């Protein structure tokens, strides 16, 4: 075997992405054939810009989903003799069944740049959309009443939002995302506060709509509370009650020392995060928690939500202040509808256009923020394949071996570009209504 030329590298890379191509083709075929029935999503396929953006975004989404099939090597493994090797180098002392080349070269620790880039997509897409969604929940829950009621509530909330916005983002990250902060438990407190918002939002939403029909209301609010609080205790406090209850029952029936799985601690060790040694002692677990987040990830997640929420608040507040002067709101007030019903079931659906557009833009911005965190080595495991840290690793040898930093840089750029184009397409199509 010999080193590959650029055309051959391109061919091999395209071949590795086969699952993604298939998924993309299926998505587009299905979407285009049913586009008249799919509302705003379907209209996206009338706009070339939106279609290109959607294609790029879905490319990375499918890459994240099929990452295990796409990667050619373990993204954390080091291979002797492959340090800083250029694109398409043959793997030194390859064993049988191993992939033959480092398609995009090796980095300064002799790891495969291609596999790290692919795995990086999964790292980013695991956090960015969810964090953006939480930021929106927080922003909407406080922004809608602030815009609708105005007065001192608005003044106080706006002051708080401006307070957070006046912080330069990087300074805030340097203060909030450190191992020392994790010791003090501040991220958990912040998480406890921020993760409450989605539950409150959904409860108020269903209560406002169905309070005239108590059985239905109780059902919906009950479902939200059970699932919400279950996820809440798992995510914010890393204590999945289901796991505790089941494990407790299991151990009391079968005896303490039959099964002790490592639980989250083992999972963390596998992804290279810090091992929480106290967990195994205090919580004998039967299986991994359904809802859980490593302390590292919780810290990053909470900080990103915290940075994004005030901007969403401002946008939502502005839209609501504009919409509350409309006739249909006055009509609702005259009918005697409650303020929460008007806010959440009449104003909010009418604000969805700009909010969906901003949601796409904000996922892109969150991706940039996550990259910034990785770039400064904040809150990520040292050998994590996320794009920001890979760029940071690569920049030390940038002038001599640029490929290690270029691959994740271009990947990040294309994802954010795709999201921006998608937002642009959505904006165009929603304005056309």
């Amino acid at each position, binding site marked *: 075997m010999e080193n590959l030329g650029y055309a051959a590298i391109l061919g091999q890379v395209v071949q590795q992405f086969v699952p993604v191509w298939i998924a993309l083709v299926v998505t587009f075929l299905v979407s285009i054939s049913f586009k008249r029935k799919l509302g705003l999503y379907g209209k996206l396929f009338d706009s070339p810009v939106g279609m290109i953006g959607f294609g790029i975004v879905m490319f990375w989404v499918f890459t994240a989903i099929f990452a295990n099939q796409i990667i050619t090597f373990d993204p954390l493994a080091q291979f002797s003799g492959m340090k800083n090797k250029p694109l398409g180098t043959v793997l030194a002392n390859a064993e049988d069944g191993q992939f033959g080349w480092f398609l995009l070269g090796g980095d300064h620790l002799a790891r495969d740049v291609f596999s790290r880039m692919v795995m990086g997509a999964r790292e980013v897409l695991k956090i960015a959309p969810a964090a953006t969604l939480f930021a929106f929940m927080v922003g909407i829950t406080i922004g809608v009443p602030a815009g609708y009621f105005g007065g001192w509530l608005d003044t106080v909330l706006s*002051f708080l939002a*401006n*307070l957070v916005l*006046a*912080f*330069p*983002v*990087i*300074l805030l990250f*340097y*203060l*909030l995302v450190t191992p*020392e*902060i994790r*010791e*003090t438990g*501040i991220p958990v407190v912040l998480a406890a506060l921020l993760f409450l918002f989605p539950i409150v939002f959904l409860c108020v939403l269903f209560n406002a709509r169905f309070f005239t029909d108590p059985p239905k209301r109780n059902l919906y609010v009950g479902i939200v509370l059970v699932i919400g609080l279950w996820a809440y205790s798992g995510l914010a406090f890393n204590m999945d009650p289901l796991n505790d209850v089941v494990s407790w029952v299991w151990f009391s029936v079968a005896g303490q020392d039959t099964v002790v799985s490592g639980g989250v601690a083992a999972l963390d060790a596998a992804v290279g995060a810090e091992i929480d040694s106290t967990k195994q002692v205090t919580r004998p677990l039967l299986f991994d928690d359904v809802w859980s987040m490593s302390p590292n990830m919780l810290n990053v997640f909470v900080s990103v939500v915290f940075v994004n929420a005030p901007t969403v608040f401002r946008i939502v507040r502005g839209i609501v202040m504009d919409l509350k002067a409309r006739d249909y709101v006055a009509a609702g007030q005259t009918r005697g509808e409650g303020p929460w019903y008007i806010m959440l079931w009449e104003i909010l659906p009418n604000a969805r256009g700009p909010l969906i557009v901003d949601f796409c833009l904000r996922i*892109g911005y969150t991706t*940039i923020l996550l*990259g*910034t965190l990785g*770039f*400064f080595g904040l809150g990520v495991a040292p050998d994590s394949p996320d794009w*920001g840290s890979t*760029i*940071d690793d*690569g*920049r030390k040898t*940038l*002038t*001599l*071996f*640029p490929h290690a*930093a*270029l691959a994740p*840089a*271009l990947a*990040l*750029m294309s994802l*954010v*570009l795709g*999201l*921006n*184009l998608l937002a*642009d397409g959505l904006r165009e199509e929603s304005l056309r209504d």
Partner: protein
Amino acid sequence: MLKFILRRVGLMLLTALVLTFVVFYLTNLPPNLEKLARSEGSVRMSDEAVADWIDQNGHSGSIYERYGQWLGIAPGWTYTDEKGVTRGRCFDAGDDPALAPRRCGILQGDWGYSTFAKKEALPYLGGMLASTGWLMLWVMIVMVPTSLLIGVVAGMREGSRTDRVLSTFSIASTATPEYVSGVILVALLASPVTGLSPILADWGWIDGKSLFLGAASPDNISFWSFALPVMTIALYGIGYIARMTRASMTEVMTAQYIRTARLKGVSFGQVVMRHALRNALIAPFTVIMLQFPWLLNGVVIVETLFNYKGFGWTLVQAAGNNDINLLLGCSVVAVFVVLVTQLISDIGYVFLNPRIRLS
């Protein structure tokens, strides 16, 4: 107008007070102080020794009191050890405490001693800010005219081919954060092995190994060392300002008075230059002012990437070395910059917009 400005300034001071307290609280958390103690004393200090060090260096006591000391409204701490040597916030060990001022905080101009720079924090920060000032100056010189030009040309004829091309460029540039564009620019223009430089060197067009330099320093400001950092910071801002300018320009171009002017027979160029431009540039002014906080982020990334010793580099070093006084100083500067630009943008908006000014 005066009342408006006074209210804004009052709100600004309140914000600054709350923000500095938050930073003070976060930098003075017990684990941070322990880390500081170990880096200042020795790494193998016992827990008791760490507690003693914290106690003897004025880091114990209530957080409000310490914040007051830092601010300069509470008397500075003093400590007399068993040998009878007195140390304190406002004087060096061995000096006579009676001669030192009672209060010394940020209000008295004492920003504390930087453990990282081994100097007083204020003059050190001043020097670093001057370096960053040069960088920012060139960023502004490049960024503002470019983005306004792109925005105005794109918004002049909405939907034209020029508009589409320029809008795509703006979207692409907002999708490229500094750490990505910096990496790409260095790989293209400042690497001796890839991009343009090896080709140019091959042709004998450049003397050195690379076209531009991959590092910059405040002592040596030249086109070849500054071009890449300035481009990197400016690129991210250009797209954003250009999009805002374009939006504002398209809005103005559809206004009634523009149509009237066109129907009167004024040429298109005259309409744009004389009638549209002035109204279209009000909104971008606010945006440019509010871009300063973003530029601060860009500065931190670019100074780290190009190893330029300025404000952003200092912030990273202060945070990395847990230098509390320096980090607090950095945040005061950063918060000040953000709040002042907000104030200027608000006041400027009122001044520039005759509809608000005259009502």
